[in-house]
């Protein structure tokens, strides 16, 4: 019996998917491109950002858009001291659940900060826009502390 050598090789599994958005996500991304943030009213009246297409509680299709603020409050955060290659930032940053002004449900995005100590639950943050907005979630480059 021959001895198996351990054969290792790096490879990349990848594809650039073409995603059609449908009207709800499309509206949100269109607004992002225009540097606005909109949410959607759920059946119980709560404003959800980014807008969901379907209500989690009633399963109804949602359609009532509500413009929300570009500032909000950190509901929770996680401090990434060693960003991964795929992460949107290459220096230490925080992931946060952010409740935007006028929204009732927090969204998840990244927050730029100099150190973990600078971030806190309840801290105010503001959206920072990408230099060029294209209609993608990364049009919000990150949030920064106010």
């Amino acid at each position, binding site marked *: 019996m021959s001895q198996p050598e351990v054969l290792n090789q790096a490879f990349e599994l990848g594809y650039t998917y073409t*995603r059609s958005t449908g009207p709800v996500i499309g509206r949100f991304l269109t607004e992002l491109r225009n540097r606005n943030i909109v949410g959607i009213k759920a059946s119980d009246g709560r404003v959800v950002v980014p807008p969901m297409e379907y209500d989690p509680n009633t399963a109804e299709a949602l359609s009532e858009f509500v413009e929300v603020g570009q500032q909000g409050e950190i509901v*929770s955060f*996680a401090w990434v*001291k060693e960003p*991964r290659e*795929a992460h949107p930032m290459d220096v230490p940053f925080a*992931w946060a659940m952010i409740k935007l002004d006028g929204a009732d449900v927090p969204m*998840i995005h990244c927050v730029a900060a100099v150190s973990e100590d600078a971030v806190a639950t309840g801290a105010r943050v503001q959206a920072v826009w990408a230099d060029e907005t294209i209609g993608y*979630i990364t049009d919000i480059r990150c949030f920064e502390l106010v």
Partner: protein
Amino acid sequence: MKEIAIVGFQQSDSVSDAGAVNEVEMIMPVLSRVFQQVGINNAQDVGFVCSGSCDYLQGAAFAFVAGVDALGAVPPIKESHVEMDAAWALYESILKIRMGHADSALIYGFGKSSPGELPIVMSQQLDPYYLAPLWVDSISLAALQARLMLDQGLITEGDMAEVVSRSRRNAMNNPHAQLAGDVAPDDVLAQEMYLSPLRKADICPVSDGASAMIIATVEKAKEWGMPYAIISGIDHCIETHNLGMRDLTDSVSTRTAAKRAGMDAGKVDVAELYAPFSHQEIILTRALGLADDTLINPSGGVLAGNLMMASGLSRIGEVFNRIVSGEVQCGIAHATSGPCLQHNLVTVLEKA
């Protein structure tokens, strides 16, 4: 409704890198042990086979197809496959037995997570428009969840460290464990933060391996003459994908599943919970209303080794092992899938 008996369970060691083994080579040794345990030859001797695996762990489409090569599926067999976790393959198998189309089933799960960057791979199970493009990894999401609990005073870092310490110590009696040792809570707290508020010890390791189970009707189990445990209830439940709309400090779907599975919190000698993060064990313990005298994760749980796609099945197997050894009378096992405990399955087991 037909009573279901578990008659055999085997698992591989949890290892950080299984090296030069492909799917079939990973599965075969575990299958041959479980066949031996029950005294059968191969998958021909059971009525149904169902497995759980995820292509993206090793980065190959239809990786599970190779799994069929481990079964001895000539002549052809009744066979199916799920993602989620092999615990759901068990669920599918129970449906098959209860409808009378099988009297027994082999269930197995396998995962070779080491080739990829697992937390990043799992980011691609999130909403493909809002979250996946940000590459929010699974550890970061769990960290957000932990912070909510800490901020609300629902847990302390000490509570989390207690979970880790108990896992490491329990795992010393688990020959398959990847991480074990006499670790005190203070030792854990002395570690630096990794992804604050999580320390590395709060996070399950990345593991390669497989596990397998054989179930049967009680009549068939008696015919085989093997010691068995009864699955007296099994149910599962999923919650909204929107993490902001869930109470992340609780697991409503776990509670719902447990209720529908007929769990009686006062009658649980042992509970094996699929909690990939220390704080999630506390969430689950509370959601299930487990009493103080319930033995929780005596195997060390998945903090001692997490075979993605098999760990949920292994939780059930661990409870089975303790029941047939006579150590306990009854127990529950929990399995999970999705970010921050989105999808949960609860199995209630009893001594035959």
